[in-house]
């Protein structure tokens, strides 16, 4: 019997045992799929941010030229393009009722004597009321009104400075408009960035698959700790075969369980949820191989560190939850700088980033950074496991 056939025999036996174990099925397929479904149903409403048309009820004092600029600017923004803002000019007393009954999404009330107060330097307050279901339009309308007030203030300040500097009265009136007209104009060029961002459903599928992979791969390698406790490892090592075959067999079982789990979860995710497309199957396959290798190699360290099966289980759970959650299994952590770099070294995060690349149309060649991270992670874990004392002979 060759070493290969011995290895295959051990893998076949272990794999059959694991696949018939209900707990493997629970961690590898059932629980992550159930969580994906629930998160999709529950969270999709919460994250559904739409750019919807909005009605803004605006109340301005009569015959106040400066105040009248505000509804004009709001109409101009709407006329410019994709933002749909309907302006309804009403009296100040009507605004709260219109917002409360949903006839208007937002209300803007410019106080009486707005111009007088602004010129007098009193800093008049314009009140914006936000109602229900405004989506992100409340930010946009608020920003437009804020920018308009900044322009009106700048014009008034220029006129005040003009009075001090002896500008003639007939020129003062035009000074406010001149500030806006003469200010350097900004030409915006719309740039492009590669789309490496997963959609909402894709993030759920990728995150849950990545986190539960850390549980699934434990069923192979961490079984060595249990076998040490039960004494069956000693029997295996006394068999006429090199000791490394036992380790290799356990590693292969973990690797295969991980491959099966990831393939099932990503395929099921693509079929069951709308808008889930991770891109080129070959590139996704390479990513799966890399992340399964990385997570399996991590289990070898736990095997070396843990003295008992209980300790191994604890360490595995902590590693899975911490790496899963910080990697984006439940919510994205948008960090930059040092924290961002540390997070990017997390295999779950690297896997999700890699799927972002492939879903944006990337091929195997575009996975450079992600492949490097996962490859280096695997190598580092294997070296650490090799160097760590205790059971060095088994590796």
């Amino acid at each position, binding site marked *: 019997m060759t070493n290969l056939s011995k290895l295959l025999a051990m893998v076949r036996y272990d794999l059959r045992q694991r696949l018939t174990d209900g707990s493997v099925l629970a961690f590898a397929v059932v629980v992550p799929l159930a969580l994906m479904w629930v998160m999709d149903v529950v969270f999709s409403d919460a994250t559904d941010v739409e750019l919807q048309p909005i009605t803004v009820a605006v109340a301005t004092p009569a015959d106040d030229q400066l105040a009248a600029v505000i509804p004009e600017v709001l109409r101009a923004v709407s006329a410019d393009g994709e933002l749909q803002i309907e302006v309804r000019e009403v009296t100040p007393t009507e605004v709260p009722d219109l917002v409360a009954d949903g006839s208007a999404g937002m209300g803007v009330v410019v106080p009486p004597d707005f111009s007088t107060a602004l010129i007098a330097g009193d*800093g*008049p307050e314009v009140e914006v009321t936000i*109602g229900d279901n405004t989506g992100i339009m409340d930010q946009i309308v608020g920003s*437009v009104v804020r920018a308009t007030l*900044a322009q009106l203030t700048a014009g008034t300040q220029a006129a005040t400075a*003009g009075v001090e*500097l002896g500008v003639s009265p007939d020129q003062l009136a035009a000074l406010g408009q*001149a500030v806006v007209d003469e200010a*350097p104009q900004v030409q915006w060029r719309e740039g492009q960035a590669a789309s490496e961002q997963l959609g909402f459903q894709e993030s759920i599928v990728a995150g849950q698959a990545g986190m539960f992979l850390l549980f699934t791969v434990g069923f192979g390698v961490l079984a060595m700790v249990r076998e040490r406790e039960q004494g069956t490892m000693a029997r295996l090592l006394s068999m006429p075969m090199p000791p490394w075959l036992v380790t290799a067999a356990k590693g292969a079982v973990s690797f295969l369980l991980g491959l099966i789990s990831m393939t099932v979860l990503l395929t099921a995710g693509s079929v069951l949820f709308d808008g889930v497309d991770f891109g080129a199957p070959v590139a996704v396959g390479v990513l799966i191989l890399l992340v399964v290798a990385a997570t399996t190699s991590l289990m070898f360290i736990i095997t070396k560190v843990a003295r008992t099966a209980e300790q191994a289980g604890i360490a595995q759970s902590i590693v899975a939850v911490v790496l899963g959650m910080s990697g984006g299994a439940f919510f994205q952590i948008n960090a930059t700088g040092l924290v961002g770099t540390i997070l990017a070294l997390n295999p779950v995060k690297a896997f999700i980033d890699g799927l972002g690349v492939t879903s944006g149309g990337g091929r195997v060649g575009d996975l450079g950074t992600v492949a490097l991270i996962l490859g280096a992670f695997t190598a580092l874990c294997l070296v650490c496991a090799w160097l760590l004392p205790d059971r060095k002979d088994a590796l």
Partner: protein
Amino acid sequence: MRSVLAIAEAELKRFNADKSNIFFVFIFPLALVFLLGSQFTPSGTAGTVAVTGPESGLRVALIEQMETAGLEVTLTDEDGMRRQVARGTADVGVTIPESAAEDFAAGTDFALELVSASQSDAVAVAQLVRDATAAATLREGQVIALRGAGIDSDADIVRALERAEDSVAPARLVVRNQSGLAREFRGLGQFDLTASTTLLLFTFLTALTGAVTLIQARRDGVVKRIMASPVSATQAIAGQGLGRLAIALFQGLYIMLASWLIFGVSWGDPVAASVLLLVFSLVAAGVSMIVGVLVDNESLGLGLGIGASLVVGAIGGAMVPLEFFSDTMRRVAHFTPHAWGYEAFAELQRRSGGLFDILPELGVLLAMAVVTLALGSWLLRRSLERAM
């Protein structure tokens, strides 16, 4: 009664002997309260912008205006900006070319590049960036306008504008958020909401994972030994039920006290909050007994415990507030004990309610507790009869 208490005490000791609880019971829930609570800020950022370009007056002016508009700005290089936008770390990227900085310094028109991420709220952030940039050019507009009005000395213009800034207070925007969501969350402390949802999630999760001790007790013959001692089946069942309750209460009380001490979380009326925790823990204890009897494999019990807790918690509003749910999902949520617990804590924490104000929620939770404990007890009695 002493026998019942002794069994319950033994269960709690077995639970505390599990070293993984140091992390999952004591550290992890509080880390989650801190992590999620940190993102729940009343003055949260309006969006994130990655800016790239050499140091210049334009860059300083732009960043100042963007930060005034509530945007979070990070400085990076060209590749970094595009990477952040591509991955959604930044909503919008802005490139300030050297030529733009020179044009701005010369008071002429300039061109900037704006890159928007694919998420839908990037449109709003892009508008904020455009408005902030326009605001950054107003000072130059003031200077040019005054020059056009015949003032030749730039030094005089700058001095006069500085005095005008001091004397003319800017027109201000006052925002009143009257939306249902804003009204609902008004008055909540930064960590209050996440602490109550974490309590619901972990009290249930810890109770369910604690079912493993019952599985172990049945597998290792502990239950048989209990039945061999002078203890009736009713006492053994009550002891096991009390043990599950003790585990759930232990977790809930720990989160309550630790979050109050560390994060200053307000739990509202302490008596009402304690009663609520007790009744919710009774439901969790009942479900834990059911799992502990129906499942024979510890790993499967643990997997089901974690999975079921997360799934039920997510449906019940322990991960995303119920206020964000659709009407249909909100109705579905009320099949879970978490949703009733959530509503009750909302009454106590946000509206200073008392015990009488949460009676409907307590009533439903109590009914759930009766059903789950009765079913768990019946299943355990059947299991004990087999053991005998």
